[in-house]
């Protein structure tokens, strides 16, 4: 009881801080300096229609490299934690109910379409909302649908690892090409910028984002596959 009182007091203090923040907040009328810079220069310098994508892939490209690395580490640690101590020889504890004819047929029809949707999302990252991370999540959803329909299916870890490491290498390789051919690491101007709104525009952004999408999709898929291969307790 004392503990709960303490918690409530703590939250009350936090609420005071938050309300102070709210009271002191006055919304801007115009864009601040950095946002104005991005709004003015993105279209000419980068050539991407989606300014958020431009910020993520080029202006703050190193952040994204770090983010992808963190995700890779997370997937690796999840795999390590869950595979350690797996007992051999003991099957899954219960009868796995089959998925039913309709769901099986529907899955075989839908999985290619979902993969296509994911590819659309990350190829068009510089024109429409979306990009590598969202597209990768959609790809992982397709893998999830496969896992759900056929619980005994084993996703090939070797394929996932191969896709993941290849995509990572290409990502870093394009970044290094930027040093050689253009202004610096992860500079997108190694390819012609093109005209705003075309699919082949914004230099290397579509390529970089496609490989980020493949990498993120492979990482999420490996997390899901590891979790689904754990045993019942």
């Amino acid at each position, binding site marked *: 009881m004392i503990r709960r009182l303490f918690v409530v007091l703590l939250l009350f203090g936090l609420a005071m801080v938050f309300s102070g923040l709210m009271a002191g907040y006055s919304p801007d009328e115009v864009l601040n300096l950095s946002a104005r810079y991005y709004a003015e220069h993105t279209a000419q310098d980068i050539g991407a229609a989606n300014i958020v994508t431009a910020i993520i892939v080029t202006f703050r490209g190193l952040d994204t490299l770090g983010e992808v690395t963190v995700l890779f580490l997370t997937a690796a640690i999840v795999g390590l934690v869950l595979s350690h101590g797996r007992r051999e020889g003991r099957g899954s504890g219960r009868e796995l109910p089959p998925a039913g004819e309709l769901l099986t047929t529907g899955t075989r029809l839908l999985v290619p379409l979902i993969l296509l949707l994911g590819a659309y*999302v990350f190829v068009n990252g510089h024109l429409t909302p979306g990009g590598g991370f969202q597209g990768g999540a959609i790809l992982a959803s397709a893998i999830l649908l496969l896992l759900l329909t056929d619980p005994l299916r084993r996703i090939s870890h070797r394929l996932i690892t191969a896709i993941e490491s290849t995509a990572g290498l290409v990502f870093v390789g394009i970044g290094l090409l930027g040093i050689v051919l253009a202004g610096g690491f992860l500079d997108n101007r190694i390819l012609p910028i093109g005209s705003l709104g075309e699919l082949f525009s914004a230099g290397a952004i579509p390529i970089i984002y496609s490989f980020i999408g493949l990498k993120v999709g492979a990482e999420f898929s490996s997390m899901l596959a590891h979790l689904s291969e754990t045993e019942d307790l």
Partner: protein
Amino acid sequence: MTLLIAMSLLLSITIVAAALLAIRGSQSLAISILAAGLVSLLASVQFLLLAAPDVAMTEAAIGSGLTTFLFFFVLGRVRGGEHD
């Protein structure tokens, strides 16, 4: 504009109600997880109304979709621990 503000208000009320359902300890864990997924989902509509379609898509696909699915995977494995 009033349309968007009214939608935003409705969403806010719904989000808070779903969050309260999510943390209440008296119902089954699956319902908690589902309610947390609903919080993320409606928050992503809120992001869309705040003119952030990129964030809305990320939250819908990753925050609401994948997180909920991961929770259900783990919950399926630890059925004995559902009750405190």
